[in-house]
């Protein structure tokens, strides 16, 4: 597509780089990549070891320390029932990352399976499946997710399911378009001529070649998934208090804007930086692995 000419200067193509050396090369290609890796690493560490370091006091109310500003004992201040904001934000990282992981792990395999099926079988199966995905594209993604979440009833699990339901058709389309091009490639034709079964071709060639692109899409979607979950929770459709989910925390902070600026500011900053990190990572990876993919994959869906 049109962006092909654009990218060459920024990122040299990866020379079969893998493991830590690959990460290092990716980071050195651009300071935006470095920023992305730094943010994502911090958030992942926060989710993994944060609660261990800080102890499990995300829900420990202290009525003698209500709405206190940032101090030595509470670095990011306390909320309206005296809970430590840092502890809650750190606990929230685990919720957000786990939700995002669940969403893409539900949506991607389901969507890809249907997309590969549509692409391989073709004919009326393809037609029916693709028209079915079209129905999902008739709504703006967030609005549809909100509608499904409202229907299922407010809970974190339901919002995760709702967002996954909205995301899978994108994976179906992506996988199908890949399969359609792969189907005509020499190595697939060769496999067919040499007597490989359709199932064998799907497993050996299709899945293996579709996987990298889908993986990039998953990392790019993680940011939007985190954002959607928080926005739905903010609206009261997702995680319920006292769960330390960032959007839920911010909904609770609304009434204390005038008296306690930190209550709304810090969860919001954390959410913004987390989403920024994942979006930058998705963009960076996409350009890094294959500049031509910029047209195939989408970014910035909300």
């Amino acid at each position, binding site marked *: 597509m049109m962006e092909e000419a654009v990218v060459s200067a920024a990122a040299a193509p990866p020379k079969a780089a893998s493991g830590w050396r690959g990460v290092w090369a990716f980071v050195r290609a651009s300071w935006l990549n470095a920023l992305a890796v730094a943010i994502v690493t911090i958030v992942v560490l926060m989710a993994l070891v944060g609660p261990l370091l800080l102890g499990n006091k995300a829900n420990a109310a202290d009525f003698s320390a209500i709405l206190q500003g940032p101090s030595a004992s509470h670095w990011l201040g306390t909320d309206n029932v005296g809970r430590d904001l840092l502890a809650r934000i750190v606990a929230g990282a685990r919720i957000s990352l786990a939700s995002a992981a669940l969403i893409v792990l539900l949506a991607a395999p389901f969507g890809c399976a249907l997309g590969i099926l549509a692409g391989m079988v073709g004919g009326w199966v393809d037609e029916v499946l693709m028209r079915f995905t079209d129905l999902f594209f008739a709504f*703006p993604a967030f609005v549809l997710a909100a509608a499904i979440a409202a229907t299922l009833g407010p809970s974190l699990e339901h919002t995760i399911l709702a967002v996954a339901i909205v995301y899978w058709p994108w994976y179906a389309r992506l996988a199908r378009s890949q399969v359609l091009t792969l189907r005509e490639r020499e190595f697939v034709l060769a496999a067919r001529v040499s007597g490989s079964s359709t199932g064998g071709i799907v497993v050996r060639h299709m899945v293996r070649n579709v996987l990298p692109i889908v993986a990039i899409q998953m990392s790019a979607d993680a940011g939007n998934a985190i954002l959607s979950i928080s926005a739905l929770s903010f609206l009261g459709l997702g995680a319920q208090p006292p769960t330390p989910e960032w959007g839920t925390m911010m909904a609770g902070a609304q009434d204390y804007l005038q008296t306690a600026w930190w209550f709304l500011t810090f969860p919001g900053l954390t959410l913004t930086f987390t989403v920024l990190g994942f979006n930058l990572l998705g963009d960076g990876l996409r350009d890094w692995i294959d500049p031509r993919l910029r047209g195939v994959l989408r970014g910035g869906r909300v």
Partner: protein
Amino acid sequence: MGRLVLRRLVFVLFVVWGVTLITFFLSRVVPGDPARLIAGPRASAAALAHIRAIYGLNEPLAQQYVRYMSDLLHGNLGISFMTRRPVTQDLRTYFPATIELTVLALILGVVPAILAAMLAARRRASGVDQTVELTAVAGVSIPAFWLALLLQYVVGVKLGWLPITGRLAAGAAPPPHITGMYTVDGLLSGHIGTSVSAFEHLLLPAIALAAGVYGLMTRIVRASLLEVTGEDYVRTAEAKGLPRRRVMLRHILRNAMLPAVTILGLEFGVLAGGVFVVEYIFAFPGIGQYAFNAFAASDYNAIMGVTLLVAILYTLTNLVVDLIYLYLDPRIRYA
């Protein structure tokens, strides 16, 4: 091309029908009892039964659907349980407010996006370019609801520069209904003060929505500018000795804006999602808030009306985008 357009129009009809099917059954599963909502919490069992009979809430779902569709074909979306008014009338009231808001948000997002993209494209892969990219990604990453709350507090409450809720100051009379858009109606009817006030009320929510628009637009326009800059006709224009400004405006920018049209559908999605939360925060009586209240109250007809309107507009936007694209690309046009 004519056949292609026809095919796409038939497809829009199919999508709209599918949408009615999905939203109808989805809205009936929403927990809550609309009869109770209409009659009030202390209504007697007899009153509830009476209301269920009037609204056909006792009929089998399939029968309710058939009735709904036949009403729909006559342009009747039913009565909203919340407002007790026809849904079409509600939509006519709330939708212009949202149009006003989103148009302003588009302007506030697109103009800086074009400027930023021009800045970035002038020096590809420079520090400026990467900084612009960072602001663009930040634009799509920042939660609209958080930005809205921050703006409301800092600009509205702390600095006191702009109003923080509603479409007009409390108690102020709206202008005579012409288009339903207060800024426009005020001007048309000579109430300039009302227009100014309505505009001030639009600004903060529009800025909150504009961030996402800016983020998407900047990336597309930048890529497109870089592509066009390498074209032969641009080199020709430069070789002819045309001034830089003129080449930029007449040759580069004009052509580079065409791909931007293709993401209008995406922009629509961003705005629709944003409107939902931003109107809620600013207590702005638009379609987003109407939808939010309808969900909260299991107001079937209102939910159906809003989702249909949004889905039709969204599908039509995408259709128009495709047609423009078809028109611009002769390879598809003559195929």
